C-alpha cells in the first residue's frame, strides 16, 4: 500500500518512514449549525428535544428551525411563539423560516 503521502515529510523518502498510517477510525459529532445551542424559548439545548416533547416522549420529532436572521429554535417552540408574535424572540426581526433541520 502507498505511504502517507510525500507532502508532510520534508525531503525524506517514503521508505525511510518508520510509521505509516494504514487505517483510521475517526469520530465526529454532528449538531445543528446554530449560533446559540440553547433554544431561547424553552432554554433546553437545541440538540435535545424541547421540554414539551420530552414530556410527551416525542424526542424524534423535535427538530430545529432557522430564521432568515440565522437564529434557531426548536421548531415546536417557535410554532407556538409565532402564534402570539411573529418576530424572532432574539432580534425582533420579522420571523421568516430559512430552513428546518432534518
Amino acid at each position, binding site marked *: 500500500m502507498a505511504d502517507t503521502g510525500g507532502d508532510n515529510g520534508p525531503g525524506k523518502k517514503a521508505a525511510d518512514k518508520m*510509521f505509516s*498510517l494504514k487505517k*483510521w477510525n*475517526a469520530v465526529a459529532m*454532528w*449538531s445543528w449549525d446554530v449560533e446559540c445551542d440553547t433554544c431561547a424559548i424553552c432554554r433546553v439545548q437545541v440538540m*435535545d428535544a424541547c421540554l414539551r416533547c420530552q414530556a410527551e416522549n416525542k424526542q424524534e420529532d423535535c427538530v430545529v428551525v432557522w430564521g432568515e436572521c440565522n437564529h434557531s429554535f426548536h421548531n415546536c417552540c417557535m410554532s407556538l411563539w409565532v402564534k402570539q408574535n411573529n418576530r424572532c424572540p432574539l432580534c425582533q426581526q420579522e420571523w421568516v423560516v430559512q430552513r428546518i433541520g432534518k
Partner: protein
Amino acid sequence: MPFSNATRKKASHDQQDTERSQRKRRVSGENRQGLAGLKRHKQEDSDFCHSDPAHHSSSQMDESVNSRKPNFSALVGSNGLTNRASSLANSKPGTAKKLVIKNFKGKPKLHDNYKEETWMKLRGAVDAIHKSTSIKYSLEELYQAVENMCSHKMAVMLYDSLKVVCEEHIKHQITQFKGNSGDELDSVLFLRKINKCWQDHCRQMIMIRSIFLFLDRTYVLQNSMVSSLWDMGLDLFRQHIISDTSVQTKTVDGLLLLIERERNGEMVDRSLLKSLLGMLSDLQIYKEAFEVRFLQETERLYAAEGQRLMQEREIAEYLHHVDKRLEEEQDRLMFYMDQSTQKPLVSCVEKQLLGEHLVNILQKGLHQLLDENRTDDLKLMYNLFAKVKAGLETLCQHWGDYIKKMSRYGIQGSALNWFQSYLPGRKHCTSINGSFGSTIVINPEKDKTMVQELLDFKDKVDNILQSCFSSNEKFINTMKESFETFINKRLNKPAELIAKYVDSKLRAGNKEATEEELERMLDKIMVLFRFIHGKDVFEAFYKKDLAKRLLVGKSASVDAEKSMLSKLKQECGGAFTSKLEGMFKDMELSRDIMVHFKQYAQHKAKGVDEHIQHQKDSISIDLTVNILTMGYWPTYIPMEVHLPPEMVRYQEIFKSFYLAKHSGRKLQWQPTLGHCVLRADFRAGKKELQVSLFQSLVLIMFNDGDGFTTEYIKQYTGIEDGELRRTLQSLACGKARVIIKTPKGKEVEDGDQFHFNNDFKHKLYRIKINQIQMKETQEENVNTTERVFQDRQYQIDAAIVRIMKTRKTLTHTLLVSELYNQLKFPVKPADLKKRIESLIDRDYMERDKENSNQYHYVA
C-alpha cells in the same frame, strides 16, 4: 328357633359391649380376654334360658313366646314383628283353627328364702373375685341367678347390695397405702402398688360386671339415675382411694418424678406411666389432679433448661436440642399421655425453649449461621420459629437486618477501595482480600469486586431463601427491601459500579463467559439494578462505557449488547433507553454513510483527473468515520490537536461530503475517540500497531526526527497535558515499548527525552497498545457525574410540565408528591422548589393569585 333368637340377642349384646368397651379402652388385654370368655358363657346362658320362658322378663317373653306359638299372632301388630307374622300366616293357608288366648294359670312362685339364698350365692362369688379365689358356682349359674332375681323385681336390692359389698372391699384397699405412708415408700414401688390395686380393681369389676351383666343391661339402663356397674366401680375407686389426699399427691408426685427422670435421660417403666395416666383419665381427674401440675412442672423445667442452655451452647446446637426435646415430648404424648395434653404441652415447651429466647437466639446465632451458610441449621431454625407465635416475624426482621448490615459493610468497604483507587499515583499494591472490605486495598480493580460480591451475596441469600425459608414471600420481600435500603444508602456510587461491572463483562476479550453465561449474568445484574434509585447515574456511566465499546470496537457481542438494552427498556421504559438506542442507530447510519462515502470518493477520483494527489490520498488509507448525534452520546470535552496535513485533508474530504448531504449541520471531530492502525518498520521486522489517535500522532513525529522532549511533543501535537502524559507513558513505559524514555522511570516528567526504539521486538505481528483509551480518567468520572445532575434538572422540569399539563391546577404538596412518584432518582424537596420557581419564571406555570400554594398550568 331358639338358636336364631339367641344369635340375635348375642348381636345386640355385642353391640352394647363395644360401646362399653370404648369407654374402657385402657383396660389391659388380660381383662379383655376375660370378657371374651364370659361372652361365650352368655351365649350358652341364653340358649339355656329360652327353654324356660317362665323366667324371662316380660319383653323377652313376648318375643320368644310369639315366635314359638303361632296362636299369638294377634299380638303381632303391637309387637312390630310384621314380617315374621305374615310368614307364619302364610305357612298354614286355609287352616281355620280357632285361637283362644288364656292367661297363665298362676304366677310362678319362688320359695320363700330364694332371695337371701341367691344373694348369698352371688355375694360369695363377689367375695371370691375380690379375694382372687376360685368361685364355687359356675358362671352360668350365677348369671342366671342374677337374671332371675332381676326378673323378680329384686334388681334394686341386688344393685344396692352389690354396691355395698364393693364399697366395703375398696374401702379396705386404702389401708395398704395408708399403712405404709409413714415409712416413705419408694415412689416407684408405691406407683407399682397403686397400679396393681387399680389393675385388680379393673379386673374384678369386669368379672363382677360379667356376672351381673343382666343387671347392668336392664335395671341400670332403665334408670338413668343409676350408674353402670363399671362406673360405679370407678366412682368407688375415686371416692375411697384416689380422693385420699396423701394417696393422690403421692401418685401424682411419683408420676411427675418418673417423667422428670425420663426427661433427664433415664430409662423408666413407661407402661407403668401409661397405665396410671390411663387410670387418672378413667377416673376423670386427669386434668385437675395431674395435667395442671404436670404443665407447671414442665414449664419450670424447660424455663430453667432454656436459660441454662442458651448460655452454654452454640445456637445451632441449642436448636438441635430444642428439636430433640420437642420430638421427645411428642413421643411421650404418643406413648402415655392423654391426647388432650398435646396442645398445652407442646406450646409450653415451645414457649419456654423458643418463645422466651427468640431475640436472643437470633442475636446470638443468626449472623453466624448466615455467614457460614449453614443451610441445614437455618432450615431447622425456620421450622422451629414457625411454631412459635411471632417467631417468623422476628426471624424475618432479623433477616432483613442481617442483609442490611452485611451489605452495607460490604459497600462501604468497597467504596473505600474505590476512593483509594483514585489517590494520586495509582499505586498497584498486592490485594489483601480480607472479609468484606475490612482491609484497605489500594487496587483500582477492587471497586469492581463490590458488584461481584453483591452478586455472590445475592446468590447466597437466594439460596438460603429457597432451601431454608421455603421461599416464604415475606422473607423474599424483606430481602428485596433490605437490598434496596442498603444499596441506596450510598447515593450514586453503586449505580456507577454496576454500570462499570456490566462494561467489564460486555467488553471484548472477556472470554471467561459463554453467551448463555453472559445472559444469565446480565439477568442477575438487572436484579441489582432494580434496587437502585438513581437509575440515571447508571445510565450515564453505562452510556459512557457503551460509547467506548462501540467506537473503539471493543464490544464482545452485539447480541449481548442488544439483550442488555432490551432488558433496560423492559425495566425502565422507552424513555430511559431512547438515547442508548440512538447510539446504536448512529452506528448503523455511520456504516451506511461510509458505503456512500467510498462510492463518492471513487467517483471523484475518476472524474477529477487533475487532482491525482487527492485521488491517491482518498483511497490510500482505510478511513472510517463514525458520525454521532450530539445528545445521544456522552459529552466529550472538545479538544483541538494538530493533525498531520494529510489527515486534515481526509477530514476535509469527508466533511464536505457529509455536509453536502445533511444541511444545517456541523461536524465536530472527536480526536479522543479516534484510533488507528500504524505500520511500523523496526530493525527486527515490520509490525502493525493498533493505537489511539493520540498515540499515532506522537509516533508519526518520529518519522521526521528523534529525541523529542515532553514539552516539544506537547507543542507539536497540541494534545492536552494529562492526556499526553498518559499517552507517552503507554508508549514508553508499558508492555510494548516502541519508544524509549530517558531518564527511565514510570512517570513522565517535563524534560524527559524520547527516542525511537529501533530494537523493538515482539512475538506478535499485530500489537494493541490502545487499551489506554478504554480506561476511565478521573476527569471523565467527575464529568459524567456532573452531567447526571444537570440532566436531572431537565428531567424534573419535564416531569413538572407533564404533571401540570394533565392536572392544570395543583397545590404545591400534591405536585411534589406526584413528582416523587414519577422521578426515578432521589431529590431534595428544596431542589424541586427551585425547579418550580424556575418554571414559573419561564411562564410554564403560574401561582394562583389568591393562594400562593396553588399552581396553574400556562398553555
